[in-house]
């Protein structure tokens, strides 16, 4: 009986956790909107950032990006628009806002290398389509075989099926490659204290993973960078003194490369 009671209590506790969690994050969101409405931008940002520890939503990133823009922190604004677009890729407001902020930050294009081929659908759509064609083709061929159709018809169906499968496999492969690129993508960010003159401030790409190192080049806040993959596993990183993490990054055109502190960049795919 006691075990039953204990189990029920545990079960109820576990069930109730998501509800408590959900209500708290929604409350924080509404409070943040309220703070913004009363002009308390910093408090609103703080609230949104608190929610990010729990979950994220397209609107949350969109609102946060708006607030960073209002605070002239273009790097973080771009970062959060990019995050918002990951969750709601077709949102015209986010796309317009991102373009506007990029122009304001004197950035030509901070977009990820776009997947122009069959763009507009998610990778899951293409994967689903690939599986559908795979099985549809196999079913059709086996059905023709069952109907004792002529070999010529079966061979024709096989060829058409193989062609479609090859094409779709290429699309899925292309999307996966693009996804991997996004995974390694970061946005250059300025120190929060430096936010006043964002458009002209830059982030140095250092020769070595040390603050005292001279810079190879520099990038503007909001610019897209890609973290180099390590030959072993993960990304090219270095643990410096004072537990500072350094990442080896390069620009999309590979013209600039160097080390940045982890807090000088924001991962697009990580909360």
């Amino acid at each position, binding site marked *: 009986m006691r075990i039953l009671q204990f189990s029920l209590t545990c079960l109820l506790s576990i069930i109730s956790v998501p509800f408590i969690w*959900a209500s708290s*994050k*929604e409350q924080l*969101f*509404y409070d943040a*909107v*309220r703070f*913004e*409405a*009363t*002009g308390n931008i910093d408090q609103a940002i703080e609230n949104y950032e608190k*929610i990010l520890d729990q*979950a*994220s*939503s*397209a*609107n*949350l990133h*969109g*609102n946060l990006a*708006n607030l960073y*823009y*209002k605070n002239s922190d273009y790097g973080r604004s771009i970062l959060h628009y990019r*995050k918002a677009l*990951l*969750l*709601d890729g077709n949102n*015209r*407001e986010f*796309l*317009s*806002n991102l*373009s*506007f902020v990029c*122009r304001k930050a004197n950035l*030509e*294009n901070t*977009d990820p290398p*776009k997947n122009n081929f069959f763009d507009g659908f*998610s*990778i*899951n759509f293409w*994967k*689903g389509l690939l*599986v559908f064609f795979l*099985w*549809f083709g*196999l*079913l059709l061929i*086996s*059905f023709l*075989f*069952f*109907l*004792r159709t*002529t070999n010529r018809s079966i061979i024709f169906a096989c060829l058409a099926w193989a062609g479609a499968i090859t094409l779709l496999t290429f699309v899925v492969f292309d999307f996966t490659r693009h996804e991997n690129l996004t*995974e390694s993508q970061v946005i250059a960010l300025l120190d929060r204290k430096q936010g006043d003159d964002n458009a002209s401030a830059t982030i140095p790409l250092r020769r070595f993973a040390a603050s005292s190192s001279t810079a190879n080049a520099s990038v503007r806040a909001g610019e897209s960078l890609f973290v180099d993959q390590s030959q072993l596993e993960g990304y090219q990183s270095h643990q410096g003194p004072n537990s500072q993490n350094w990442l080896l990054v390069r620009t999309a055109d590979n013209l600039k490369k160097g080390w940045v502190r982890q807090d000088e960049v924001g991962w*697009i*795919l990580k*909360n």
Partner: protein
Amino acid sequence: MSIKTILHLLLIFSLGVIAQKTLAQSIRVEANFTPSSVSNTSRTVYKVVIHGTQQNPQGSLPQVPGLRISNNPQSLRSANFINGVPSVRVELNFQVQPQRTGNFTVPAWKVMIEGKSYQVPPATLQVLDPSQQEKQAHQDLRQAAFLELPFSRSYFFEGETIMTSLTLFIWDRLPVNRIENAPTKIGESFSSNNLGKWTAEKRNVSRNGKIYSTFTWPVALTAAMAGTKEISFTVNLRVRVNSRKNSPFSSPFFNDPFFGFGREESLTVELPRKSIEIKPLPSANRSSDYSGAIGNFRAQSSVDANQIEVGDPVRLNFSIEGKGNFAAIPAPILESNEEFKIGPPAFLFEGNEEIKSEGRQNFEFILTPQKAGNLKITPLNFSYFDPIQEKYSTIIGNEINLFVKPGEKWIEPPNQNKSQNSMPSNIAMSTNDLFQTASDPGIWHSSLQPKSIESNYWFWTFQILPLSGTLAFGLLGWKRRNKFNEDFRIKKANLSRKLNENADHRDPTGFFRAFKDLTRMQISKKDKSRNTFAFSSDELITFIKEQKFDKNLIIEIEEMLRLGDGLEFAESSSQELDFKDLRRKVSEILKKLS
């Protein structure tokens, strides 16, 4: 003389004084039943107390019809000082078992003490039915601890929140250890606030000639439906009771001299059910926007800023102040329109959150202007029912003007190289207002990484269906194809054998029939959609011609078929036929056909 000797002398002197005093004390006799009221199923004690002596009295206890009194009393002697005065007494306890209900009196009787005769006063016992006795006990208990719930009016309205207080009276002599729980409401006709710890406590409150301590809880009751409804409250007290069987609930335990010692028991105090008339709200003159507010209120609307930019949120605060059923008042309806995107309202109450009957209720809306200009916020009217005046009232909201400045807009950049700009063309043409704040969070995601379709259980489960279909069609097709080929082979062999036999027996009709069937079989592979086995000679020739065979072969087949038809139907002569040559020709034709 030593000090020890002096102390001894003083002790002897004191004892002498005590003995003299005691002897000088007059003898007094008392008699009573303890308890004096019992049910006919329980026992009581007839107690005779003789003050001023410790000698056993001599006497004969009179018999009382209806009472069985023990002849073997328990005697107790005691000696003590009360305010410096020595006192001795002897107590005789006779066990009494009542045999029926009624009032019984043990008449006065005489006892001999120290050679003198004394009169024992009469004593009366009330024997009640068990229910009567219980009622009596309850009556006593009701006076020991009771609840009180006053109402200011004789009737209320459906949905009205009635503010009152529940008071627990505890008689000072009732040995209450603690109040076990907050009072609990009985009955579903009213909803009530949660009663936690009492909010007021008073001592020495006089009621019914007794002194009480009182504990008060504020109560907000809301009638759920119209009609005459009952309500009651109950609360449990933890009291100390005598360990004796007949205490405290079968008798008024507070008369017990051993009161305050023994075990703890729970005592339930219940408010006698109160009937309250609940009237339905009048339907006459009810405003269309009335949403259930009952009380007396004031309302006003305000915004935080009068000048903002398109897309910037602004707070609209609609507050209702006064007394009434705040808990039942919904937020006013304010929907998004072309001018404003409006988020869900936030409820903020200033006052006692538990009772919510008096204070200020704020409804905060976040309005995001969608276009520039001098915009007017829809006035918020508020209707309520005043239960004192028994009529509906409407507070007309004030009109709020908001000057919205145009925000930044997306304008297509001049001379932009479209190949470099990866923005979709429809976005570039957009002139949407920028940086608009979303007033709701939308769908929550635990990760920014899109969830891979392969991680979905159903993705793999659904593939079982086409896999099963493919395997089924493949296997069945394989089996079917093999059967068809085998049948074809056997049939062909049979026909070939028949052809040879007919040639050996020089049977032209059978020979040509076999040839015709073999030809039909061979050409059946060419088009499986047509049943070639049912073809006549002419149809067969036409079909062969359609299949674009060699012309010589077609001629040879046609010749053979005509020859066979001639022999079978025109009865031509078969004497000149060379079956050896015919068999060779047939063999060549069939080879070419396959």
